[in-house]
C-alpha cells in the first residue's frame, strides 16, 4: 500500500484535519452545500459574517460579474447572534463540521459581545474577526485600515474570547504587513487574508453605478496575484500562522498560497462555479503530496521563502 500523506495542519492553537476551508460568506451556514458533500469533509467551515443584531443587507443588485471575478455587495445580511445561536448553530453542530464563526461589529463593544457570547457555547472551534468588510458603512473598513485601531480592537476581543482568534485582513491598504503586526500585537492567534478588493462597475446603459451599494468587493481569480503577494509579505512580517485566500479554483492555486506561506487556504467564489471545489482540492492536494513523496503540507508551506 502506498503511504498516504497526512493532511492535518496546525495553525497555532488550532488543528485542522486538512488545510482547505470554505471562506466566510460563500458557504452560507453549510446547509446549501450539504447535498453535494458532507460538510465535515471541510478543513473548516467559516460561516456567514455574523453581527450582533440582524442585518437586512444592501439593496440589489448585489452582484456583478467582472473579468475572471465578481463584485459582491451583500452588506452582511444575516439573522444576528440570537437566531444564529438558536437555529443555525444547533443544525451545524449536528453535522460534525469544524465551525469557525466570522464576526463583524459596528463598534468595538459589539465585537466584544459577539466574541464573549460565542466563546460560551460549544461547537465552535475558532472565531474570525472580519474587520475588513468593505460593504458596510459602520464596522467595516475603518477598523481594518488603521494599525492602532486593529491592535486595540483585537486586544479587547482577545480578552473576551476563549477561542482561537483569527483576524481577517483587508487588501485595501498601503502596507498589509503593518496591519498584520498590529493584529499580532493585539493577540491574534492566526491571520487570514485576503478579504475582497474594493471595486465598482458602472452600467453604461444608464450611466449609473451598477450595484445598489455603488461599490462592492472584488473576489475570484482576478485578485489572486494580489492575494498571493500579500500572503508572501505577511509571512515575512509576522510569526503568526496564515490562512490564504483569493481566487483559489484549482490545486495549483492553493499550492501557490501555501508556498507563499499560508498554512491553510480558504475557497470562496469558486464554490459558486463548482460546488465540489473544496473536496476536489483536498483530494488533489493529497495526490500531489503523495506524488512528491511528502508526508504532509509542512513540506510546502513557505517553500517560496526557502
Amino acid at each position: 500500500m502506498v503511504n498516504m500523506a497526512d493532511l492535518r495542519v496546525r495553525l497555532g492553537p488550532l488543528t485542522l484535519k486538512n488545510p482547505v476551508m470554505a471562506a466566510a460568506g460563500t458557504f452560507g451556514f453549510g446547509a446549501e452545500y450539504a447535498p453535494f458533500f458532507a460538510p465535515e469533509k471541510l478543513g473548516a467551515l467559516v460561516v456567514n459574517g455574523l453581527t450582533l443584531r440582524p442585518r437586512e443587507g444592501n439593496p440589489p443588485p448585489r452582484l456583478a460579474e467582472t473579468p475572471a471575478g465578481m463584485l459582491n455587495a451583500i452588506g452582511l445580511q444575516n439573522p444576528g447572534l440570537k437566531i444564529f445561536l438558536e437555529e443555525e448553530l444547533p443544525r451545524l453542530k449536528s453535522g460534525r463540521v469544524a465551525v469557525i464563526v466570522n464576526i463583524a461589529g459596528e463598534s468595538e463593544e459589539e465585537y466584544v459581545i459577539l466574541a464573549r457570547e460565542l466563546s460560551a457555547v460549544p461547537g465552535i472551534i475558532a472565531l474570525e474577526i472580519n474587520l475588513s468588510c468593505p460593504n458596510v458603512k459602520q464596522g467595516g473598513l475603518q477598523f481594518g485600515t488603521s494599525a492602532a485601531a486593529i491592535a486595540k480592537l483585537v486586544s479587547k476581543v482577545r480578552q473576551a474570547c476563549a477561542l482561537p482568534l483569527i483576524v481577517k485582513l483587508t487588501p485595501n491598504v498601503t502596507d498589509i504587513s503593518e496591519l498584520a503586526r498590529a493584529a499580532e500585537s493585539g493577540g491574534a492567534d492566526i491571520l487570514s487574508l485576503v478579504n475582497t478588493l474594493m471595486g465598482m462597475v458602472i452600467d453604461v446603459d444608464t450611466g449609473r453605478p451598477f450595484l445598489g451599494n455603488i461599490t462592492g468587493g472584488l473576489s475570484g481569480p482576478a485578485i489572486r496575484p494580489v492575494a498571493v503577494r500579500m500572503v508572501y509579505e505577511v509571512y515575512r512580517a509576522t510569526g503568526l500562522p496564515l490562512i490564504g485566500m483569493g481566487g483559489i479554483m484549482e490545486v495549483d492555486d492553493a499550492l501557490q498560497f501555501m508556498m507563499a506561506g499560508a498554512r491553510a487556504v480558504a475557497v470562496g467564489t469558486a464554490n459558486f462555479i463548482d460546488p465540489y471545489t473544496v473536496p476536489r482540492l483536498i483530494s488533489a492536494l493529497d495526490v500531489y503530496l503523495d506524488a512528491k513523496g511528502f508526508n504532509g503540507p509542512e513540506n510546502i508551506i513557505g517553500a517560496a521563502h526557502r
Partner: protein
Amino acid sequence: MLANARVLNLEKLTASDYLLLLEEPQFAVQASPGQFLHIRIKDSLAPFLRRPFSVAGAPPGKGVLQIIFRVVGKGTAVLSQAKRGTSLTCLGPLGKGFKPTPGLSPAVLLAGGMGVAPLLFLAHLLAKEQKKILLFYGVASITELLPLKRFLPPQVELHLATDDGTSGYRGPVTALLAEALQGGLKPGEMFACGPRPMLQAVAGQNRGWNFPLQVSLEERMACGLGACQGCAVKIRQGGESSYRMVCCDGPVFDGQEVIW
C-alpha cells in the same frame, strides 16, 4: 443536483433566440415549472459565473429538458455555439416554481419576451389539470415571435401583442390584458414572467383587480443555492419586509408581496 447534461440539439428559433435540448433524465423528472438550471457555459474563466435559465419544458418520458434562451451578452453568445454531443455542467432543478391552485380557472399567463419560457412549461402542467388557459404574450416586434405552437398544449388560447404592431395587438401586453379584463375576462389566477417593468405594471394594476398573481423574477446570481445572499429582492410578508433570494425563495413570488 449537479449533472453533466448532454447537448442533444441546439436550434435557432429567431434571429437571437435558441432552443437547447439537454439530456438529463433525473432533472427532467424532477423539474417543475418555474424552476431553473444554473449552467456553466464553459469550463473556462470567461464566462466566469454560471448562468440561470428557466426550464421551458420537459416532455414526459423523454429525459430531456428544453431551454429557450436569447443571446444578450457574452455567456449566451458562447452558449449559442454549444456543440451537439458535448456536456454542460448544470445545477438544478433549482428554486421554487409556480404553484397553481386546483380549481382556479381560467389560468391567465402573462409573458413578456423571453419570459414566456417558464410559462410554456407551466401551460403543460395546467393543461394536465384540465384548466382553461390563456396566454398573453408580448414582444417588441414580429421578428422576435417564438414559434409557440410547437411548445404549447393545443388548448391554450394565445393573445398576442407587439410593441410595433407588426403582429397582433399594437402596444404593451399589459394593455392587451387590461382590455381583456375590461371585456369581461375573469381569471381564476395569473402567472407572469418577463421584464421587471411589465411585472411591476401588472402587479400594480392587480392591486385593483386582486387576482391571485404569481410572478417569476430575475436577479444576478452567483451560487444559485441560497449560500451567497446575492440575488436579493425585497418581499413584504405579514407587514414586515425583508430580502429574499430569487434562487431559493423564488424565482416565483406572490406578485402582491414583491416590493418593486
